[in-house]
């Protein structure tokens, strides 16, 4: 038996403070906030290592995103991030990871483009949004029976199916649907009445954004006030408990994946129905809303009320990153890096939780 050196001093000084700290450290908010702080610090270290001033860089981010002129744009980016966060959060609530946001997003964009282009008239916008939701929902939902019947985990099937959808849409935009005579891989501009209604004279934020905000509200109500939302949380907390209690887990997964797909699809629709009013190959994916939304959902732990908050963070990074590149000479990839760090820290938490020795059975 190797004896540990017994520590003397019965109650070391500052013990009370330490106890308070330990108490605070158990608060559920600590890890997410810690992840963000850590990401910011790591980012600062990298900027400093490159011989630049982190303070300047970060203030450029904030200024770039929050100055009055860019608020309109930041707000729209925030909406898209929220929408994609929803696509991740709904399945996350039941413990499933939807990594197929990209595929669902572009299919939504495709459906909206086709429908809005084919059926101009007063109903073009609602029908386009509806079509986007339906097609993307169907695509997302495919993963549920694959999991229930063929035991392919949702995280895998969404990851593998998504690039296929992206490739198909890319093909369609390049060839059958391409605008005649244009050198760019893009569809023709949508007619006037197939464009998303605007709000006042804002140029980026439009009614589509309000649709996304409404979706967040619906998710919140469903999550906290309905039987389905309750079942989603129960299954997320303990899948076997849910199954034992009579939750039809397969059907729930189908619903969750369809809803997630619909959310992503609507984001796609809103993007193509906004300026420049067309589907451009790659344009839906290049801003990285899927990944930012996923990170925001993870950071919020899927909780509906936190998603708008965490999405602010990523929207600011996204918009401010470009400004930082311009004024502080720091490449915008830094914002991707920060997102990555946040996710890694959150993932580490999961690993640590699993390995930690908790209470024994009492």
């Amino acid at each position, binding site marked *: *038996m190797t004896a540990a050196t*017994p520590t003397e001093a019965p109650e070391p000084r500052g013990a009370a403070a330490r106890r308070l700290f330990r108490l605070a450290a158990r608060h559920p908010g600590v890890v997410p906030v810690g992840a963000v702080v850590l990401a910011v610090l790591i980012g600062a270290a990298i900027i400093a290592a490159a011989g630049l001033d982190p303070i300047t860089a970060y203030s450029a981010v904030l200024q770039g995103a929050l100055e009055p002129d860019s608020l309109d744009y930041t707000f729209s980016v925030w909406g898209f991030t929220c929408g994609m966060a929803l696509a991740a959060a709904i399945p996350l609530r039941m413990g499933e990871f939807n990594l197929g946001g990209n595929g669902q997003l572009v299919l939504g964009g495709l459906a909206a483009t086709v429908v809005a282009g084919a059926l101009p008239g007063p109903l073009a916008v609602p029908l386009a949004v509806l079509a986007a939701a339906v097609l993307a929902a169907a695509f997302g939902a495919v993963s549920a029976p694959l999991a229930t019947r063929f035991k392919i985990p949702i995280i895998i099937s969404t990851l593998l199916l998504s690039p296929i959808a992206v490739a198909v849409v890319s093909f369609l935009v390049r060839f059958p649907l391409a605008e005649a005579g244009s050198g760019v891989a893009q569809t023709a501009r949508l007619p006037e009445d197939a464009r998303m209604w605007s709000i006042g004279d804002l140029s980026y934020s439009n009614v589509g954004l309000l649709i996304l905000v409404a979706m967040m509200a619906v998710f919140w109500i469903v999550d906290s*006030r*309905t039987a389905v939302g309750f079942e989603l949380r129960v299954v997320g907390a303990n899948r076997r*408990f849910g*199954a034992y209690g009579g939750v039809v887990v397969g059907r729930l997964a189908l619903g969750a994946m369809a809803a997630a797909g619909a959310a992503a699809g609507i984001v796609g629709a809103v993007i193509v129905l906004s300026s420049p009013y067309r589907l451009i190959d790659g344009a839906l994916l290049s801003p990285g809303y899927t990944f930012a939304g996923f990170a925001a959902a993870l950071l919020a732990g899927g909780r509906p009320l936190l998603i708008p908050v965490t999405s602010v963070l990523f929207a600011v990074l996204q918009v401010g990153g470009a400004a930082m590149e311009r004024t502080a000479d720091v490449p915008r990839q830094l914002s991707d890096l920060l997102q990555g760090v946040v996710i890694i820290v959150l993932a580490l938490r999961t690993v640590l939780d699993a390995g930690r020795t908790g209470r024994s*059975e*009492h």
Partner: protein
Amino acid sequence: MTDAAAELRGISKRFDAVVANDGVDLVLRRGTIHAVMGENGAGKSTLMSILFGLLRPDSGQILVGGVERHFRGPLDAIAAGLGMVHQHFRLFDSMTVAENVVYGAEPRRRGRLDRTAAAERVRELSDRYGLDTDPDSVVGTLSAGARQRVEILKALHRDAEILILDEPTAVLTPVEVDSLFAVLRRAADEGATVVLVTHKIHEVLAISDEVTVLRDARVTGRFRTAEATGSALVQSMTGREVTEVANAGTGEPGDEALQVTGLTVVDRGVHRVRDVSFTVRRGEIVGVAGVSGNGQREVVAAILGTGSAESGEIRLLGRDVASLDVRRRRAIGLAVVPEDRRGEGMAVTMTTAENLALGHHRTAPIGASRGWRRGWLSLRAQRDMARRLIADYDVRTSGERQPVGALSGGNAQKVVIARELSHRAPVLIAEQPTQGVDIGAIESIHQRLLDYRRDGGAVLLVSHEIAELQALADRVLVMFAGRIVAEYSRADATTARIGAAMAGTGESSRSEGGAS
């Protein structure tokens, strides 16, 4: 006291508003077995966790071998010679016994795990303490009792001189309990010190040398077992007498509510259940005895619908349930208290109210809000129901919003019982319904099961405790190796007969009717 292997002095611990330990003193004398008893939520597990470094006391001292220690975590405690056998085992199912035992403290040769030495070490320890464990068997294939022996080996391998066992017998059958106690006695004779938390008086009287009783976070009694009586212990624990209840056998059973015919369950090529048939009628409690792992779980899972059946027929209130999912089966009239409380019976991170609500959340809340519509939750009804059940079942909690995971084990069990019984389903399956609950709660749960029977409920009671089956059941079925090998009426269900049948050595007797 010079012979104290470990000593706790004035230990206090609180969780927010709840005081779990309040100035607790505990002296563990070297070479003795010390039992710790007390009602659910009295603070036993908290005290054990503090001793093992899992929790830190708010105040008080921990002395090991006369030296004061400040454990920063269980690793410090292990280094100081403590070992804890956890109730839900922390073992790797796919690895062998030897690999599990040495994990984290491996004998190495040229930097790699020395398997021969590991197996040798396990064999040596097993022989020394009479543990009867094969180092090469894969843990996933072992029974609960055998897994527990692996946990004990793990502690002994790390040279634990003080062994802490928190409710080790809750999941064991009587035979397994006996062999566990033999091992503990042997360890104590070899100079180890054992602390044992249990709710069972007869176990305390049989195995321990000294007893400390906790009540409401304080010590209310210290006894030398030789001088203690069961009623003195109960009195000290509860402050009152507890009267045992029993099935008076009155009343005639009614219609057949649950009929199982020719049930066979095959799991990955292994026959878990073979051609099992039985019925449970309204107003009847049918007991199922058996060492765990002889097919009881699979039978229950097949009835509930969470497990699959190879062949056979299950009828609930006359309806064939083959094509129905769990929700529909429950809707017809089935409630289940599962054996695996933490794994299946609750969601530890959710609140007590939410845990109580599952299964009730799609039905109209009783006498509640006019505005309720199908598919919506009534949070008020959820809260009201939770408060009512918490009061009715005497669940010790700081409120219905407390996460179930923060309740003591016995109180969590009461939550599961409360939820399932409150369905008032015609058919109730209760697996180990009194696991982890204190003596007072055992009697009150027994009384509720008897009331269920009286009110026309059909109860299938699966239990390791022969005494529990004898007290409650109208008939007792015994399962062994996936079959029902014996069936006894109330009058014939003697401990000797049931025990022999459980071990697979009773003469096959299924005299009574009721089957197929």
